[in-house]
Each structure stands twice: as C-alpha cells, then as structure tokens.
C-alpha cells in the first residue's frame, strides 16, 4: 500500500522537482484541491497558481503557470509550461512584467483579447513576487484567486 506520493513537476526544459510527499495541494481550474496518497486516478487542468508539497511537516511551494496534473494512487505528475521554485524566481523580471501588465490593463478595454492576456500576465507576476518574497519561510497554501 502506498503511503506517500511520488511528485514530479516537469516543464519542457527540465524536471523542476521530483520528491516524495505526504500531500500535494494544487489550484485546478475548478478550484484548489489537495491530493493524498491512494487518490483515485484523476486528471485536471491547473490554473496559474502555487503547488504546495508537504512532507513530514515541512512544506515546499512551487510556482506553476498553468498546466495539467495527472494523479494516480501513488504518483502526482504535473506538466507545466513554466514552473519555478521560490528561490529561482527572478523578482526583477516579475516586477517588470507586473508594470507592463498594469500599464496595458490601464488602456485596454475589457473585451479585448489583450486584456485577458495582460490579466493573466499580471496574475503570474504577482504570484511570482509573492512567492519570492516569502521564500525560505515555508508557507501554507496560496490560492491563485488572491492575485486578482
């Protein structure tokens, strides 16, 4: 019987993280959820958000810019286009991205495609900054909704 989950976060460029975990919290498109060992096979699309991996009392957060999670009884596989550990986040770049996105949001109309895009960019930037700021402290769940 599986007592832990083997968690892997994979992006096109590298394996970001691979470790054992007691539980994994992710923000799916339909809301945040937590997976424990022996979960029923489950496939979900992920929103821009944080994945929190807990192991023996310690928590680790990883930024994920959307993707998919493939869950089976003893394994969680996350496919993301971009994923970063808090200490890898480029705060300067995120700050600039936030400024750009805010500037664009100020002039765009709500219906535009660019508006949605800028909003997503802003969300990514804010979340990256937040995670970067709290890096090392070991934080609990951060939901994507906060960044709106």
């Amino acid at each position, binding site marked *: 019987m599986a007592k832990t989950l083997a968690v892997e976060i994979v992006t096109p*460029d590298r394996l970001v993280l691979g470790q054992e975990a007691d539980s994994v919290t992710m923000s799916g498109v339909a809301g945040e959820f937590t997976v424990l060992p022996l979960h029923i096979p489950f496939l979900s*699309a992920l929103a821009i958000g944080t994945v929190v991996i807990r192991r023996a009392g310690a928590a680790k957060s990883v930024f994920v810019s959307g993707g998919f999670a493939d869950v089976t009884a003893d394994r969680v596989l996350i496919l993301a286009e971009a994923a970063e550990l808090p200490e890898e986040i480029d705060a300067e770049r995120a700050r600039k991205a936030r400024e750009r996105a805010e500037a664009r949001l100020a002039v765009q109309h709500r219906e535009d495609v660019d508006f949605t895009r800028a909003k997503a960019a802003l969300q990514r930037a804010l979340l990256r900054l937040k995670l970067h700021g709290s890096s090392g402290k070991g934080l609990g769940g951060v939901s994507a909704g906060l960044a709106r």
Partner: protein
Amino acid sequence: MPALKDVKNKITAVKKTKQITKAMNMVASAKLRGAQARIERFRPYADKFYEMLGELAKGADPSVHPLLEAREEVKTVLLVVITSDRGLCGAFNHNIASAALKLAKTKAAEGKTVKVLCVGRKGRDVFRRTEFEIVAAYVNEMSSFDFSLASRIGSEVIGGYVGGAYDEVTMAFGKFVSLARQEATLLPVLPLSPAEAGEVAAEPAGPKAEYLYEPSVEGLLAELLPRFINVQIYRGLLDTSASEHAARMRSMDNATRNCDDLVSSLTLVYNKARQAAITKELMDIVGGSEALKG
C-alpha cells in the same frame, strides 16, 4: 611555374582557413551537445503529454474541438518552415527549404493559396524570392530559444486556423536522426487527428483505471490540444537546432580535411617551384663561368 611567394602566401591562407573551420567544428560540436541535452530534457514532458492526450483522445469525438475538425474545402495552406539562421552547414537548410518549396508548389498547382511562416533566416531568404506570401518571420531566434518561442508561433498558427485564415498547416523542419543523418521532414500539424495523437503515445501496458476528469473531457481537450501544437512546434525547433549543429560539424570536418589536402598539394607545387628556381640559378652560374673561360 607560379612565383614562389604567391604559393607561399596561398599556403598560409589555406592554413588560416583550416584553423577557422577547425574552431567552427569544435563550437558546433559543443553546441550540438547542448542541443541534444535539451532534447533529452524535453522528452519526459513530451512523452507524458502524448500519453495524457492519447488517453483523452481515445473516446473523443472529432466535432468536439475546432482543431480536430478537418475542413471540407481546403483553400489556404500554411507552411511553417523551420531552418537555421546561419549558413556554413552544408545542404542542411537547402534540403528543408526545397522540401517545403516542393510541397508549396504542389499545393499551389491544386489551386490552393499557400502562405509561409518562417523561423530562421535561411528559410526566409529562400521564400522571399518566391511568389508565396510570408505571413511572419522569426529571424535570429534559433541561437537561443525556449518554450515561449514555440508558444508564440503556436498561438499565431492556432489563431489563424481557428479564425479561418488557414485550413491546413504543415511544418517543415530538420529531423535529427543521428549525428550523420538529418532529414528534412514535412509534418502535418493541423487539423489534428486524434487517432494520430493516440498513435504517438506508446500504449502503456496493462489496463488502466478509469480516470476522473476535471473540468471535463471536452474542457481538458480544449486546454490540451493547443498546447499539443506548441509541443509539436517546440520539438521541431529543438530537432532543427540539433540537426543544424550536426550538419555544421560534418561540413566543417570536411572543410578541414579539404584544407589538409590543399596544403599538401600546394606544398608540392612550392617545392617544385623552389627546385626549379635553384636549378635555374645554378645554370646561370655555370653558364657565366663557362663564358668567362671561353
């Protein structure tokens, strides 16, 4: 007999060229190693992606998503041509461009409009001289690209396809088979066929448990399919970049060898000329002293 000094200059020049080709060979081999490592790193993502898509696409109905639907009447064809930015890599770019050009001409002969999206300067230079319209060109990106380039190209392709600007999309790229073999390959990208996607996924052994899907099979497909295009394009980019370096390595290796041949044949000419000059000088001296004796 050529002048001694000219031959000597020529030998020096060839030796200098050899140094350059040798250095380029080494640079290419280092870059090739990097490109191959990137392909290796991409593989787990791609494999899992195909597996997931294959799982989902099994039961999917083609009408469920616009990217899966084949158009009844194909009017406009988009060719995504991926080549390198730099030359000096043998026939590599030429092979890709001519394969793409051949397809473009066939499609044009069938009365379809052909448009081209170029990645890499060499491909763009070829198509700029043809009658086909270039909708976009990504130049000087091949030396350092990441997944975001693939997503930019992907969203342009998907946007055009869904908007009805294109009815069919094919990608031409240099497939990396081995160090010695790179193949110019044409890969149909859109419309997607779920059977194909399922085929790519190596069927995992043993029966799989029923999955729970969130939000829904259709919703997930709508998220996965556009990304699948990006994955395909990224793969094309990675392969082309590895192939480019392998092709350059080989052609620079040949060039270095040719330089060696040239140097040895030029040295022969030089020695002959030197010998001839010495003989001539001796003849002059002997002739002069004979005349004095006279």
